[in-house]
């Protein structure tokens, strides 16, 4: 305990000295003037950090441009000819991969110390040094206690729990195509459980969805206000809601991962020295401690900083739950991003009514089977489940260049996105209709 205290004292001491040191460190000259950052983070996150940064590095003012991740990437891309932005600052590592791929980032190696190579099994910084992780986030399930009580919902513990009949029409998620963080959740399930089994889990859960929102924050918002009972979200949405007093709870399921939120310097930045100072500040103990504020509640990447957090603050470096979390393969994810997102939209988002219809019937079959077992009905229900779980593409196809070309606007001629989508949509529609017929047959047999 004493050694830990000493560590805190040291880190505080360091935080007092660091800013002065860092003001001179990058590029050999003191950063001054305006530094512009494009971010998807809310005011509750950016305001305290801006304040602390401007105090730590006097003479520099932080200009925050708030845009959602996709719009931010688009903005940086459209304005690259005459770039006025210094930094990109957001959660989803995918967005940074896209920027890196389009050569819109500058490599920079942070000088900050005390930050390990990996968090869980995920590398904190981009191996090529184009962006750096500054806070970690895990994915999981949040729910509204009042709602759960009124609807007699049990506490969910794992993804499969959400597929249970009791959760029918109570679950919400953001579409992975629009929310970088949900995309990671889906990809985590796919990597953790495998392509076939993962999609089965996702589709079984989806049959219970109440809504599929088009922005990440739509989910915690609906759970906070009690419009939906359960939401699949990134952890800080739940933690900051708890800190604001909302009656919500959160759990990390067994198959999950913890992924860093990142900051990267834009290629050809107008104020490079100040941009580097900002990166250094975020990674310094002072910057890391700001993350513990109730309105932000993110997991710092510097393990020493957790000493300042409360006892109930999740610590991915010591909590055994995080050590069990799966490794996340960024390259694999990047290779099939568009395919996974489009599959989700075409098989689930745009066919949700059909999917929910057959899921409801299957729940009724299950209830009837509990009362009176019937092997024939069970076999029919299993057939229906297989039909729902069926996929139009294999894992190998999903990452194939031909299919990727359809989504990235590749220069070669090939299948058009609309064609591929129409095929998948009709595949899903036909299968769900067949499944519905089987399920109804099963229900008749079971009754």
């Amino acid at each position: 305990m004493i050694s830990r205290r000493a560590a805190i004292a040291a880190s505080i001491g360091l935080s007092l000295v660091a800013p002065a040191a860092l003001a001179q460190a990058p590029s050999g000259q003191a950063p001054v003037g305006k530094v512009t950052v494009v971010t998807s983070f809310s005011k509750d996150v950016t305001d305290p950090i801006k304040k602390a940064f401007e105090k730590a590095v006097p003479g520099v003012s932080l200009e925050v441009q708030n845009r959602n991740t996709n719009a931010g990437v688009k903005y940086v891309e459209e304005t690259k000819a005459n770039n006025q932005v210094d930094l990109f600052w957001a959660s989803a590592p995918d967005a940074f991969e896209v920027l890196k791929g389009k050569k819109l980032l500058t490599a920079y190696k942070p000088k900050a110390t005390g930050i390990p190579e990996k968090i869980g099994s995920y590398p904190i910084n981009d191996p090529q040094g184009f962006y750096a992780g500054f806070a970690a986030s895990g994915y999981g399930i949040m729910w509204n206690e009042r709602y759960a009580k009124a609807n007699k919902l049990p506490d969910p513990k794992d993804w499969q729990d959400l597929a249970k009949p009791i959760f029918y029409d109570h679950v919400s998620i953001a579409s992975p195509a629009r929310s970088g963080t949900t995309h990671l959740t889906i990809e985590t399930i796919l990597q953790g459980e495998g392509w076939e089994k993962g999609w089965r889990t996702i589709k079984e859960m989806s049959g219970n969805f109440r809504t599929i929102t088009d922005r990440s924050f739509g989910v915690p918002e609906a759970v906070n206000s009690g419009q939906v009972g359960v939401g699949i979200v990134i952890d800080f949405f739940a933690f900051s809601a708890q800190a604001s007093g909302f009656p919500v709870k959160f759990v990390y399921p067994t198959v999950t991962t913890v992924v860093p939120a990142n900051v990267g310097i834009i290629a050809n930045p107008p104020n490079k020295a100040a941009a580097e100072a900002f990166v250094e500040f975020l990674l310094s103990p002072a910057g890391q401690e700001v993350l513990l504020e109730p309105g932000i509640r993110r997991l710092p990447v510097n393990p020493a900083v957790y000493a300042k957090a409360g006892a109930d603050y999740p610590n991915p470096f010591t909590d055994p739950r995080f050590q069990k979390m799966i490794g996340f393969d960024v390259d694999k994810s990047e290779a099939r991003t568009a395919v996974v997102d489009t599959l989700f939209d075409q098989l689930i988002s745009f066919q949700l009514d059909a999917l929910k219809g057959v899921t409801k019937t299957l729940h009724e079959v299950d209830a009837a089977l509990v009362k009176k077992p019937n092997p024939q009905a069970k076999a029919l229900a299993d057939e229906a489940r297989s039909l729902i779980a069926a996929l139009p593409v294999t894992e190998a196809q999903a990452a194939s260049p031909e299919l990727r070309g359809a989504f990235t606007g590749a220069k070669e001629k090939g299948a058009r996105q609309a064609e591929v989508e129409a095929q998948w949509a009709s595949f899903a529609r036909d299968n769900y209709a067949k499944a519905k017929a089987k399920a109804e047959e099963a229900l008749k047999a079971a009754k």
Partner: protein
Amino acid sequence: MTAVPIPAPAPRARRLSATPGQIALALAIAAFLMLFLVLPVATVIYVAFTEKGTGTFTLVNFYDFVRTELFMRSLWNSFYVSAMSVVWSSVFALPLAYLTTRFAFRGAALVQTLGFLPLIMPPFVGAVAMQLFFGRNGSVNLLLDDWFGFKIDFMEGLNGVIFVQSVHYFPFILINLSAALRNIDRAMEEAAQNLGSSGFRLFRRIVFPLAMPGYLAGASLVFVKVFDDLATPLLLNVKDMLAPQAYLRVTSIGIADPMGYVISVVLIVASVVAMWLSARALRGRDYATTQRGGGGLAKRVMTPMEAILGYGVVILILALVLAPHLGLLLLSFATIWSFSPLPDAFTTAHYARVFGESSLYIKNTLIYASIAGGIDVVLGVAIAYLVLRTKLVGREWLDWMASAALAIPGVVLGIGYLRTFYGVTLPDGTPLASLWITIVLALAIRRLPYALRACYAALQQISVSLEEAAENLGATKARTVRRVVVPLMAGGILAGFVTSFSTAAVELSATLMLVQSNSDAPLAYGLYVFMQSAAGRGPGAALGVVAVILVAACTFLSHLIIERSQKAKGMGH
């Protein structure tokens, strides 16, 4: 003089032909629209007509559109929702407009202002407030469930979209119809009454037909706006409509795919066709009356029974359409509001939090929205005049071009502006697109159709003979416009300004793409930044209330000004 069909080539209208000044004006407007609307949008949506890989011209993407079940379903749903929204908006708007303009109705200005509020629903926070009130577990349904054991799905599926859209956009009909009703010569009504017509028959046969230009202006706006609106369906999580489909593709993995832009083209074409149809419906009829507003004749007085009924209907409608604003107000004072009919407790802390920064946002919003509204009415009057009063070749194209702006998703316009103007730099290297005037221009273009429809309807109701009289007395065309046409159109111009101004004040989608720094940001952007976190919900709502009060105050003020000026000219109503 009533709305009787007259032979197609109206003999009086033909007399007026184009002067050099009018041609110059038309060219100037065309250049403005080309530069700030057509060109930026074209840089984005030309993709719709290119073949994948080669970039050559093709229509295969439209073939894909027709073949995709999802898009055809979306198209049909969009038509259905838009048509039904017009019906329900009319149900809300007709009683309010008729009772407050044609009868001695105490509190008419207040009703007009309150009835206008639903149009100013700040983004995001309005949605949250509405869910808290009407959602599946909103106040109304929680109480219903408690007392009677059932719930009503106000906000579910297509019917939910129709409900929310009708509540949101009925002021378009209210404001345009009211302006039109005020313009009807009271002698018409009196003549009909003297001949024995009264009650609903009087309204159906005389008053409403005469107000048709105003009604259609409003109704076509509602139709097109609902057709092109993506915010409401998305907030209700309805994705199988056309505008959300375009948005979802343009903002996610479809960004490199032509289909999002194909949908945008379809939206634009559908909007222009709807506008064209509403113009056709009025063709060959004359709505002009020489006398304006009844020249101070007394308004009709209601019998006590009629008065009770009238006030009852007005209060009921206002209660329904203002419920979201009440929810917003509660939210701005609420500590925690979750799964309960009312918030747990109340606080003023949220206002304290936004107090410091909101003054900057308010200043920016007022500047941007007033300039945008100003540009819109100037263009609106000019285009309406050119289309209705001259015989210039292709003058309708100005109208259609401007109206098409309604159908362009804000994000497409935003990206188009960045593409077109970011490369253009000032001498010191700052890009043109980073100046705040770019935001103003984008707002003006996006809100131009509102002002245009209002000005157009107002001009349709003015008899050409008044202008002829002025010109016979030796006035030049410019002087006639300044001294006769514009003053007579004042009501319509005001209606246009107020609609453009107030909707511009809460616009977000294009703004979000174009805002370059916090010091240039309008209120809607500030709201967006707050509404991304749990702790920001209260302050966001407080900022929303500030926005609504601000716009309502401006609206009320302009009502007062116009009433006073009309009275001063002896045209009071």
